[in-house]
């Protein structure tokens, strides 16, 4: 009684079935092969290590929907809708496989027909279909009626017509499920079928007095319509914007397993690896990212550049690049095919046309798809990647574009700090200080004079050379001295760790600085490094190993928390203060250090820690990362102002941080606040050091220090 067993116009049903199937499969493969060949336009990248782990991890993330559900809030419950749709369609996928695919000619269907399994399975399908319909209604509501900011995007007319098709198809399939079920039970008089909704529909149909024959014909028609709709979806999905259900699994498998804070090194000897200016300069994985974006807009809603009115949106970056790839990719494939000699690097035959540079098709990537202003707006805070449910990597693309601008296009951006890095080894051009000035009167070992130390205190350029931050270096040193730590500093020999150079795209300067510092560490046999700068911390810990520099790197919050735990620091009771904590991106999101700074604050007597609304993994950038510390913030609002407002909403008197950039950004933003409104901005080390020495002075509200 399966519709495929019937004959239609003398043609056996299963022949029609498989013919249609083969046609749809052919069209699917045709498109899928184009998409795969477009990926091959990209550069090689090894993401094939630890394949078993990769695969299991993908299954875990996809089937638990964990990366999606973590964004669930009552205000925006779309994540739940997606999970329902995912699980629902997975179950339906099994149903289609068993009851349609394998049923058509292989006999599985007859095996299950009327069995308990069928009853249970169809009962589940009934519930699932209702849930999926509800989720789809939610989708329609959010995409077309009450559109939230994250989904607002300009569309062409054709897109507006094509876009809803998949929604219609899914809704259609769900409704057809009930139709097929009801008409089948009614037409074939199956007694007491299990599934509730199907059974009640069957009852209604039987009672309506429609002939069995008519019911059977309707059943078969609905069955075939269902099949055709399914095939239509298979043909249509890879041609639509909905590549996401097809490629997200692969994107999760091939996600980046390297430390979050490490950027891919450039082989400087190979000019073609110096950044990206064309779509084919990106790696295949970077291109796969583009397919996997389904415009959920989560990244768009957390990007500090976007929220402060700058021209960067991580969502638009990815979608823009995707549209660009699909637009220019096929032409690039044609040019490649026409010139196989050029791509393989073999000599062109003598009679060949002189190698005229082929006109790049489509608009330019830099300036066209993404503006230079957008490229330089990124603070590399990683909020976008943190929320992306399919592990799309936005930042490495922006850095690759910056690498091209710095190393090939010789951009003038950040010229002064970068030149200063090259000539003087620090990005603070015009500083009044020498690297050891802050140590005056503190009696601190300089490793060049006495290398008998257990711990190297890596001061970092900002804390050694920037006026306000010198006090942080002094506080850290005082704490270590109090605790009896045998430490030293590199003094004048220390050079920038390289973070600003790398994040600004000047990889050659970064590698020069790294080589210099690694040589220094080697000559002084350095094993353990403590630093108060999350950027230095991240680079030393996660990026130096790329160049053979392996050290135990500890952030000062971890180190101080450890000293307090071991009771090596004696903290005295002091004044009361409400303190909020600004999460440095490179400490929290990049390196998952959330507890140590809070442990210190909670162990300071009198301190009440109040969290900002966006904290820990959702912490909001101060605006100073990614080299932005040295670039002017000319477009939109200042990111630091936005964050300062969020901090002041907690009614805190003190804003504590653990990063010299956060400190400076806040100091700048707070300059306009007067009197009672003006918060104290302190590094956690300063607060801890104050608790040690001058108990009464800790965090007296409104007692802002005079600025020199």
């Amino acid at each position, binding site marked *: 009684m399966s519709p495929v067993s019937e004959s239609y116009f003398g043609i056996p049903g299963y022949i029609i079935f498989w013919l249609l199937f083969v046609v749809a499969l052919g069209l699917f493969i045709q498109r899928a092969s184009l998409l795969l060949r477009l990926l091959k336009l990209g550069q090689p990248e090894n993401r094939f290590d630890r394949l078993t782990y990769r695969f299991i991890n993908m299954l875990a993330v996809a089937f638990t929907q964990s990366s999606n559900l973590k964004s669930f809030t009552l205000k925006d419950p779309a994540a739940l809708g997606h999970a329902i749709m995912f699980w629902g369609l997975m179950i339906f996928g099994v149903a289609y496989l068993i009851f349609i695919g394998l049923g058509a000619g292989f006999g599985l269907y007859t095996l299950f027909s009327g069995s308990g399994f069928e009853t249970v399975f169809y009962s589940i399908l009934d519930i699932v279909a209702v849930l999926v319909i509800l989720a789809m209604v939610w989708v329609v509501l959010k995409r077309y009626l009450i559109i939230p900011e994250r989904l607002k995007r300009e569309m062409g007319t054709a897109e507006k017509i094509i876009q809803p098709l998949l929604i219609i198809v899914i809704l259609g399939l769900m409704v057809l499920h009930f139709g097929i079920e009801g008409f089948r039970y009614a037409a074939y008089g199956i007694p007491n079928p299990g599934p509730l909704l199907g059974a009640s529909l069957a009852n209604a149909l039987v009672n309506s007095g429609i002939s069995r024959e008519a019911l059977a014909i309707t059943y078969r028609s609905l069955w075939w319509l269902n099949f055709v709709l399914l095939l239509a979806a298979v043909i249509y999905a890879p041609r639509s914007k909905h590549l996401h259900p097809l490629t997200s699994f692969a994107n999760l498998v091939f996600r980046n397993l390297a430390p979050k804070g490490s950027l891919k090194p450039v082989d400087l000897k190979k000019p073609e690896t110096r950044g990206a200016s064309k779509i084919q300069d990106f790696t295949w994985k970077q291109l796969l990212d583009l397919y996997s974006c389904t415009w959920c807009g989560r990244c768009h809603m957390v990007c500090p550049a976007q929220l402060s009115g700058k021209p960067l949106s991580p969502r638009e970056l990815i979608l823009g690049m995707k549209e660009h790839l699909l637009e220019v990719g096929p032409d690039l494939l044609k040019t490649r095919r026409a010139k196989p000699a050029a791509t393989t690097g073999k000599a062109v035959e003598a009679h060949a046309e002189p190698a005229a540079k082929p006109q790049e098709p489509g608009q330019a990537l830099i300036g066209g798809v993404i503006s230079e202003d957008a490229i330089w707006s990124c603070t590399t805070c990683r909020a976008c990647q943190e929320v992306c449910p399919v592990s799309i990597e936005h930042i490495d693309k922006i850095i690759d574009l910056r690498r091209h601008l710095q190393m090939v296009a010789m951009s003038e951006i950040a010229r002064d700090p970068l030149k200063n890095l090259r*000539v003087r080894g620090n990005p603070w051009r015009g500083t009044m200080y020498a690297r050891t*000035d802050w140590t005056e009167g503190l009696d601190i070992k300089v490793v060049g004079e006495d290398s008998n130390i257990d711990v190297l205190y890596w001061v970092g350029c900002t804390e050694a050379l920037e006026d306000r931050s010198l006090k942080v270096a002094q506080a850290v040193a005082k704490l270590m001295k109090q605790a009896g730590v045998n430490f030293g500093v590199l003094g004048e020999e220390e050079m920038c760790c390289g973070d600003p150079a790398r994040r600004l795209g000047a990889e050659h300067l970064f590698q020069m600085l790294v080589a210099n510092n690694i040589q220094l560490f080697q000559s002084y046999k350095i094993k353990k490094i403590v630093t108060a700068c999350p950027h230095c911390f991240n680079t030393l810990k996660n990026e130096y190993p790329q160049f053979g520099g392996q050290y135990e790197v500890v952030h000062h919050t971890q180190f101080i928390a450890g000293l307090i735990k071991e009771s090596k620091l004696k903290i005295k009771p002091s004044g009361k203060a409400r303190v909020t904590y600004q999460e440095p991106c490179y400490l929290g999101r990049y390196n998952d250090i959330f507890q140590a700074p809070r442990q210190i604050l909670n162990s300071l007597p009198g301190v009440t820690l109040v969290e900002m609304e966006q904290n820990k993994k959702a912490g909001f950038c101060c605006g100073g990362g990614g080299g932005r510390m040295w670039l002017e913030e000319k477009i939109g609002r200042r990111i630091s102002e936005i964050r300062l407002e969020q901090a002041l909403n907690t009614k805190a008197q003190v804003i504590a941080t653990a990063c010299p950039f956060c400190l400076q950004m806040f100091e700048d933003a707070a300059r306009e606040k007067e009197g009672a409104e003006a918060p104290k901005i302190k590094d956690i080390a300063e607060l801890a050091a104050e608790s040690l020495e001058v108990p009464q002075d800790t965090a007296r509200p409104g007692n802002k220090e005079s600025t020199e």
Partner: protein
Amino acid sequence: MKNIVVCMKQVLDPEVPLSLFKIDTEAKLAVLPKATPPVLSPFDENALEAALKIKDAQPVTITVLSLGKKLTRAVVKASLAAGADQLFLLEDESFSDFNTFLTANALAAAIKKLGQYDLILCGIQAADTNAGQVSTGIASLLSIPCITYARKVELVGDRVKVERTLPEGYEVVEVPSPVVVTTNYEVGALREPDVEAFMSAGKKPLTVWNVQDLGLESGKTSRTSFLKMYQPAHDIKCELMGGASPEEKAVKLVAKLKDLKVI
């Protein structure tokens, strides 16, 4: 192909933090800790940029001359990284950072030895002495014209066309080459080396000449003697005007300034 010679001095970093700057009054020298490298005089960087701007427009050979007692290779090679074709180091114990005539004489001798030169570019002055005499010295010793304070330099046929900055604008001067031109900051800051140059600067040719190579007798060419070197001490006293109101403080301040005969 035209030949441009650029004279670039290695100087003590003008941006060195005060606490690192020490004068050895005995040796009449500025002493720097080992970790603070000298730099190319920023004024001379403008001169090299002027040469590179010409090279952007037409094929020329740029030769850089650096003179000193002991030159730091990594520092002087920055000129090669920025785009100069060859570098000649005039190194001799008898050279001095402060002896203008000796420097001009040695540079002029080196330029003569090079033989071919259409344009000689110098910064308006050196960033350590701020004397500004070497350029005119070279021109005088080579008996060629010198145009100072240029904001733009072009090679037009056998002539050199220069825009000179004036207080109220600029004037355009054209002279037959060879000629010495000093450039100001309006030429533009020296471009950063590209990655290729950054990595290959160490491999470009570098020649070292001493006084014998230049055919000079050391010591005898000096026409100045260096008397004393010291760090000026600025004694700053700060007095705060007290008072109940801003008005009262202002009155006191005015009275004090009148006392001191400042106003």
